[in-house]
C-alpha cells in the first residue's frame, strides 16, 4: 500500500466513524429526552367549594425543608435551613404551578415559618396560598393568651396580613396525663380558641379554616359533628394506599383512610392529604415488591405510584409532600402535571403491594420529629429510619441460618453507626416514656427502642 492509498483509506474510515458517531448521538438525545423531568403539561388544580380557591394538586410541605447540613445531618443538633436552596425550590414550584405551601410554628425546630416567610415574600401575594397551624401542643401554650400570641406570631413570621388556610394542628392526640378528649378540650374549646378562630375567619384574617387529625377517631367524629357550627372549609388527613384499608395493621391506633375520606366526601369537605408516602416508606420498598410496580410501568418511580393513587380521588384537594431535594420537587410536579389517575387494575395492584409490604415489621415512624428532642439525647427518628431502611433493603434477618445473614448483619450494624452516633443509639433509651405522648402515630417508642436494641445486641453477639 503506498502513501496515497493509505490516506484514502484513512479518510474513508474517518468518515464512517463520524457517521457512526452522529447516529449514536441521536440515540443518546432520545434517552436524555425521556429522563429529563420537564413537566409534560399543566398542573392539575382542584377547587375549594367554600372559598372557590383553585389549589394545585401538589402542595409544598414545609416540615422537611432543605438544610445546610444536607443529607449528612448525622448530628443535626442545630439545623440550619438552606434559604438559598429553599428559594430555588419555591421559585421552581411557583413557576410550575404549585400554589399551596403548608407550614407550622413547630416545624424545623420552629424555623419553618420564618424561612417560608422570607422565601414567599419575593412572590406576588396572589400567586400562592399559605397554610399554617395553631400548634399549641405544649401545655404552656394552652392558655388563651399564649395561643393567640402564637397565632399572631405566625402572621409576623410569614410576613402576611391574611392566612389562607389555618388548621387546628393534629387533633386526636393525648398530652401527658390528659386523654385525647381532655387534650382537645383544653387546647381549643375551654380557652375559646376555636371561637376566636371562627371570628378571625369571619373578619377575613383567615380565609379557610380546618383541622388536621391523627390518632383517636372519636375526636375526628366529634370535630365533624361540629361541622354545622364551624363550617370546616377543609380537613387534613393521613391517606395513602396502605392506610386506605390497612391503617390498623400499620398502627393499631389509626383509622382506615377509607372511612375518613368517606366521612369528608359525605359532607362535601375537601381532603388535604398528609403522609402520602407514609414517611418515605412508599418511596422505596423491598426490591421484589418494587418489581411488581416496575413491571407495570418501568419508568415510573415508586413514589409516583403513591401520588397518582391519591390524585385518583376527586375529593382530594391537595397532596402535601415534604420535598427536601430539588429532584423530589421536579419529579412530584411531573407526576401531577397533569395527574394521570390510576385505572381499576392499577388500584388493585397497589392494594396487592400494600398487603405485601405489611408482612415486614417496620416501625410506622414518619420521621416527623414531634418526639424530639429526647432528654437523654437519643435520636429516635434516626434509629427508626435506619431500621425501616434495612427492612426495606432486606437487611434485617430473623435467623442466623438466613442466606445473606453475614452481609445483612454488616450492613445493619455499620449503617447503624453511620446513621446514629453511638451515644444516641437505642441502648441508651431508659424507657422514661416522655416521648410517647408526642407521637402522632402512637408508636410505643420505648418498647420499639428496646426491641431494636435487643436485635442489635443479638447481631453484635453473633459476630465472629
Amino acid at each position, binding site marked *: 500500500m503506498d502513501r496515497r492509498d493509505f490516506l484514502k483509506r484513512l479518510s474513508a474510515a474517518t468518515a464512517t466513524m463520524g457517521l457512526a458517531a452522529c447516529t449514536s448521538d441521536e440515540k443518546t438525545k432520545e434517552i436524555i429526552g425521556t429522563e429529563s423531568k420537564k413537566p409534560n403539561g399543566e398542573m392539575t388544580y382542584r377547587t375549594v367549594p367554600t372559598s372557590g380557591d383553585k389549589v394545585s394538586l401538589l402542595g409544598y410541605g414545609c416540615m422537611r425543608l432543605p438544610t445546610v447540613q444536607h443529607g449528612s445531618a448525622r448530628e443535626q443538633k442545630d439545623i440550619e435551613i438552606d434559604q438559598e436552596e429553599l428559594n430555588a425550590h419555591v421559585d421552581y414550584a411557583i413557576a410550575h404551578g404549585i400554589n399551596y405551601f403548608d407550614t407550622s410554628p413547630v*416545624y424545623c425546630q420552629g424555623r419553618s415559618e420564618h424561612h417560608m416567610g422570607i422565601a414567599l415574600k419575593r412572590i406576588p401575594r396572589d400567586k400562592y396560598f399559605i397554610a399554617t397551624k395553631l400548634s399549641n401542643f405544649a401545655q404552656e401554650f394552652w392558655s388563651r393568651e399564649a395561643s393567640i400570641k402564637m397565632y399572631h406570631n405566625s402572621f409576623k413570621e410569614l410576613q402576611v396580613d391574611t392566612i389562607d388556610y389555618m388548621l387546628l394542628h393534629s387533633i386526636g392526640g393525648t398530652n401527658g396525663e390528659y386523654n385525647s378528649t381532655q387534650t382537645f378540650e383544653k387546647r381549643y374549646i375551654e380557652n375559646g380558641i376555636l371561637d376566636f378562630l371562627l371570628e378571625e375567619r369571619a373578619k377575613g384574617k383567615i380565609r379557610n379554616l380546618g383541622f388536621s387529625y391523627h390518632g383517636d377517631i372519636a375526636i375526628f367524629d366529634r370535630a365533624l359533628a361540629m361541622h354545622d357550627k364551624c363550617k370546616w372549609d377543609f380537613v387534613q388527613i393521613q391517606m395513602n394506599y396502605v392506610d386506605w384499608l390497612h391503617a390498623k395493621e400499620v398502627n393499631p391506633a389509626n383509622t382506615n383512610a377509607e372511612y375518613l375520606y368517606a366521612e369528608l366526601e359525605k359532607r362535601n369537605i375537601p381532603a388535604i392529604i398528609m403522609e402520602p408516602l407514609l414517611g418515605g416508606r412508599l418511596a422505596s420498598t423491598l426490591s421484589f415488591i418494587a418489581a411488581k410496580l416496575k413491571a407495570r410501568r418501568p419508568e415510573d418511580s415508586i413514589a409516583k405510584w403513591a401520588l397518582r393513587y391519591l390524585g385518583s380521588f376527586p375529593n382530594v384537594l391537595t397532596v402535601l409532600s415534604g420535598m427536601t431535594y430539588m429532584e423530589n420537587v421536579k419529579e412530584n410536579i411531573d407526576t401531577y402535571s397533569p395527574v394521570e389517575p390510576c385505572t381499576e387494575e392499577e388500584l388493585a395492584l397497589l392494594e396487592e403491594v400494600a398487603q405485601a409490604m405489611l408482612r415486614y415489621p417496620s416501625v410506622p415512624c414518619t420521621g416527623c420529629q414531634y418526639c424530639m428532642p*429526647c432528654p437523654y439525647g437519643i435520636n429516635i427518628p434516626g434509629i427508626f429510619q435506619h431500621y425501616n431502611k434495612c427492612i426495606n433493603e432486606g437487611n434485617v434477618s430473623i435467623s442466623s441460618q438466613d442466606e445473606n445473614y453475614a452481609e445483612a448483619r454488616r450492613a445493619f450494624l455499620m449503617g447503624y453507626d453511620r446513621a446514629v452516633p*453511638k451515644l444516641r443509639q437505642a*441502648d441508651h433509651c431508659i424507657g422514661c416514656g416522655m416521648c410517647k405522648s408526642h407521637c402522632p402515630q402512637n408508636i410505643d417508642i420505648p418498647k420499639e427502642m428496646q426491641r431494636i436494641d435487643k436485635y442489635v445486641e443479638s447481631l453484635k453477639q453473633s459476630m465472629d
Partner: protein
Amino acid sequence: MKSKFLKYARVLCAVVMMLSIVTLFCDTTGIARHYLGWTVDIQFLPSISAGLIAAFVSTLVVTKLFGRIYCSVICPLGIFQDFIARLGRLTKKQKIKYSYSEEKLWMRLIIAVLFIASYLICAYPIVGLLEPYSIFGRMATTLLAPVGRFIAEYLAASSEAAGDYTFAMPAALNYSYVMLGIALFSLVLIAILAFRGGRTYCNTICPVGTILSIFAENSVMKPVVDHDKCVKCGLCAKKCKASCIDAKNGIVDSSRCVDCMNCISVCHKEAISFSTSSDKDKTPNIIKRIKDSIKKKGQKDVNASVATDESKRAFLTVGALVMGSAMTKSMAKTFDGGLAEITEKKEPQRNDRITPPGSKSYKHIEEVCTSCGLCITACPNEVLRPSESLDSLLTPVMSFEKGYCRPECKRCSDVCPTGAISLADLAEKSATHVGHAVLIADNCISMKKGVSCGNCARHCPAGAITMAPTVNGDETSPKMPVIDSQRCIGCGACEHLCPSSPYSAIYVEGHRVHRID
C-alpha cells in the same frame, strides 16, 4: 563487581517487616492480626513473655549462626533507625560519614544488667522503657495509630458517601499524653543518635542488642575482611552504621555488627564477604573483653542517660483539661426536632484499676506487659487506655466513658504479643470477673427522681442486676438496682449505659486478681 545482593535482601526484608508492623498498629479492623500478628510475636522480649520457646530459640540460633541479623530485619526500632540514618545521609549536603569507635563496654553492661535485674526484681516499667520493641510500640501507638485512624476515617467517609459497607468508621483511640511524652522523649533521643551516628542506640544502649551480642560475638558467619584484597581505604568503616569496623586492622566487631551488609556492598575490592570467620577475625568474647577493659583501667565515667521520670510528669495534666459541659439541658418541648446535648461522662475515682479480661491479675500484667500499646490501638470499643499511674505505668487499663467491654470481643487478647492479655475463648472471657459494680445511690435517677429506668439491669450480660422497690413490699415505690457482686463480671455495660452524667450512678471497681468461674 560489588556484591549488593545481601544488602538488598536485608533492605527488602526490613521494609516488609516494618510495613507489617506499622500496618498492625494502624489497623482498626482486627484483620491485620490474622496475617501479620507473627511479626510482633517473634520479637525478643514478647516471645519470652508469651513463652514462645520456638521463636526465642530460633532467634538465638540464628544469631549464633549469622550474627545480629535480628537487629536489622526483625526489630522495628532497628529498622526505624536505619530509616532515620538514611535520611541523615540524604539531607546533609556532605553525607554523614561514620567512623569506627571503641566499644562502650561498661555502659552496655550496666544497662543490660539493669534490664535483667529489673526483670528479675519485677521493676517492670524499667524493662518496658528500655526494651526496643516496646519503645517502638509506644511511638507507633501515639504517633502512627492516629494516622491510621485518619486514613480509616477517610475510607469510611468515602465508602459512606458511596453507600458501600466495605469500610467501617473506626473506634476512637484513647489517647494518652503521658504515653506520648514518653514516646516523644525516646523518639527524639533515638532519632538524634540515629541521625548522627547510625546505630548508636543498638550498640550502646539496647539491652536486647547486648544480650544478642553475646551470641553474635563468635557467630559462625560474619562479614570477614580478606586481608589480601583489602587496601585499607576505610570506605567500609565510613559506611558502617554500627561503627564496628576497625579498618586499620581489618576487623569487624561482630558483637556490635547488625549484619546490614553495607560494607560488603560498598567495598570496591570485594575484600569483605559474608562468610565463616577464622580465629584471627573473631571478636574476643565478653569475658575477655571485660578483663581487657579492667586491665586498661580506662575506666570512664558512665553517665547512663537513663530517662528521668520527672520530665515526663509535665505531660500528665495536659490531657485532663478537656471537660464535658454542665448537666443535660432538659430542653422545653416547645418545638419539634433537634437533639439534646449529651453531657460527656467522666471517669470515676476508682480505688482499684480495672485490667482487661485475660490479664489474670495486676501482678501478671505488670510482669508480662511491655507496654507497647498494641492492645490500645486494637480496642474497638474505646475501652482500653494506658495507665497513667506510676506503679502500672503505660500498661492497659479499662474505663467505660465511651463504650464498654463487649462480650463478643477479645481483640486485645488476639493482638497481645507477650501473653499479658490472653484468653482462650469468649467463654473464658464471660467467666472472668475483672471487677464488680458499685452503686452510687445519689446519682441514680430511678431512686432519686422516681424515673422509670433500669437501663443497667436491662443490659447486664451477666444478669447481675435486678431492679427492686426502694420500700420493702411496696411495688409502686421508686426502683433501685440491686447488684449481685458474685455474678458481676465488671464489663462496664451498666456504667456506660447509665443515664446519669457526668458520673454514672453505678461504676466498676477493679479486682487485683481476676476471679474465674
